[in-house]
Structure formats: C-alpha cells, structure tokens
C-alpha cells in the first residue's frame, strides 16, 4: 500500500498552493478558488487517514467538508457581490473599514 506520507505531502502541497493564492492575490474571486484548493487539501488528508486507521470517519468528514464548501462558496459569492457594490470592485484590499 502507498505509505501515508505521500498522501500527506500531496495534501500539504495542495493546501499550501491554496494558501499561497490567498496570500498573494487581491481578487476576491481568486480568494474563493484558493480557499476551495485549501479545502481539497484538507479532504485529501481526511481520506488518507481514513485509510490509515481503517475507519470511515475521515471519509464521512470529507463529505461534510464538501457540503460546507458549497455553503461557503454561496456566502463567499454573496460577500463578493457586497464588495463589488460597496467598494466598486473585487479587490479585497480596498475593504479596510474593519481596522483600528
């Protein structure tokens, strides 16, 4: 069987690619995509450990994650629309009202 380290490295790299996107992009839509990548990384991790432990919990959880991701996208798009309306664009760095 494939050792779990490989899966973990895969999941870590997918997660970090998503994170990289979040950190370097200003576009809210790209944010959403990047977040999807991060969730995928987490899902890989869950499934990998499901196989490692021989139980189904991880797989069930990844299902939940997928479902929640859908909800997240829905809200995310809503926020993006609000951004567009209030800050004339999808640039997240413009919305800085929640600061000191």
């Amino acid at each position, binding site marked *: *069987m*494939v*050792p*779990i*380290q490989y899966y*973990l*490295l895969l999941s*870590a*790299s997918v*997660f*970090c*690619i998503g*994170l*990289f996107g*979040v*950190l*370097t992009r*200003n576009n809210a839509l790209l944010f959403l995509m990047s977040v999807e990548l991060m969730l995928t990384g987490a899902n890989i991790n869950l499934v990998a450990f*499901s*196989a*490692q*432990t*021989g*139980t*189904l*919990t991880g*797989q*069930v959880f990844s*299902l*939940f994650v997928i*479902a*929640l991701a*859908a*909800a*997240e996208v*829905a*809200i995310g*798009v*809503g*926020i993006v*629309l*609000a951004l567009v*309306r*209030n*800050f004339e664009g999808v640039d*997240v*760095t*413009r919305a*800085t*009202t929640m*600061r000191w």
Partner: protein
Amino acid sequence: MNRPRLKLGSHLVSGLAAVALFVVLAAVFLTAPFGDPAGLVAEGSVTAAIGYALIDRTGLAAFETEGFLVALLVVGVVLDAALDGALLLAKSESGGRIVTALRTGTGDDSRTDGGDRETGRSDGGGE
C-alpha cells in the same frame, strides 16, 4: 495575444509564508513515524457504509464507523442558512437592509466604530 502571464513582484513576498508552512509540514510528515496503514480491508461497499453512517445505522455498515446523524442534520441546517444568507447578500441594493448595513462611506448613520470617513475608501493599507 491574450494569455496568462506570470506576474512577479513584491506582492508575492507574503506567499513565502505559505512556502514556509509547506516546508515545515513536509519536514514534520517525513520525519514522523506512522506505522503501516490499516487500510479498508473488510468486504463490502464503502459508499453504502458511509450512507449508513450518516443516518446512524452503524450496525449495517460493513466498516467500522461512528454515527453522524446529528452532524448531518446540523450541516443541513447550516447549509440552508448559508444559502439564505447568500441570497440575502446577493439581493439587489433596492431593498436589502443587510447590504445597507455593510455599506460604508455613503450613508450618514452607518458608521459605528468612529472610523475616519475619508479613509473608508482610499486608505487601503494593503496595496
């Protein structure tokens, strides 16, 4: 020509944090002892077992699992709420009160934290 172009620049610096995280994670994963994977060795359908697990019929599942009925219901409610919320946020500006609440810099009564009116738009700080 209109094709993707790699945009390099100082905005990538913060991405180094992600790289660093990957390095650390990799270092941890590669050095950690996990033992041999158990694998899903039993006979039967994994998908069916997941289905049973979701509705708490763990006795019928071919694989060892726990019940997730409550989680399923909670997630269901959350999803519903999220969709409603998304709809509310996305509604046109004509009637949505929440949208108005989020708006800053245009309304007179909308500011509650004492922030400076002029910096609401222009002083992004991140660019």
